[in-house]
């Protein structure tokens, strides 16, 4: 999981199986100390996070579990998903 800030969105009609109708957000990743690394991660969003919001992003099987928990989710062709919208952070 990484922390980041939603900075944009991607729209695409030609998409892989399992991504139809899914919202794709662009997240500016942060390092452990919360500083932006300049790296952009595209993540599927089902929590309706908005631009400017702080989020956490899960990767790999964690990302697929965000979209549909359980072992049979290998058809979800994505490797990153917004797992939480962060209210506050210590």
């Amino acid at each position, binding site marked *: 999981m990484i922390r980041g800030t939603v*900075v944009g*969105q991607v729209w695409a009609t*030609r998409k*892989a199986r399992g991504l139809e109708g899914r919202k*794709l957000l*662009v997240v500016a990743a942060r390092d452990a100390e919360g500083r932006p690394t*300049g790296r952009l*991660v595209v993540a599927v969003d089902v929590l309706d996070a908005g*631009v400017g919001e702080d989020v956490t992003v899960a*990767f790999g099987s964690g990302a697929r579990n965000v979209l549909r928990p359980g072992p049979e989710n290998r058809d979800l062709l994505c490797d990153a998903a917004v797992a939480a919208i962060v209210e506050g952070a210590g």
Partner: protein
Amino acid sequence: MILGRVVGQVWATRRDARLGRAKLLVVRPTGIYEPAFDEIASGEIASGEIASGETAFGARHLVATDDLDAGIGDQVVVCLGAPARASAGGNDVPVDAAVMAVVDRAEIDLHALGAAGAGPGIRRKLTEAFG
């Protein structure tokens, strides 16, 4: 997943048979990628796939299979690891990256990026990429 721009194509007749006739595109990741992917590598899927690629990903490019007919100059979203193999034909296809979307429109809110603490260098680079 990784946002990038297709900048080229690779032809290779001598290839692992399981690649079949997969189209191979050279993609330049958008944003700053030095070293690339290390926090993407923090995810379990990518730890084997890309973390060890850190030394290689100072190369600022990746090669991905494509079955969405992305063209040179297109912005694309690339996925790594198991989903990439699934889209290229199955878990026994030796690929680690595949084009998952051909982008119609991508918007980056540079104000939000600035508020997120990204410096002018990053913002300039992204304005270029999204210009």
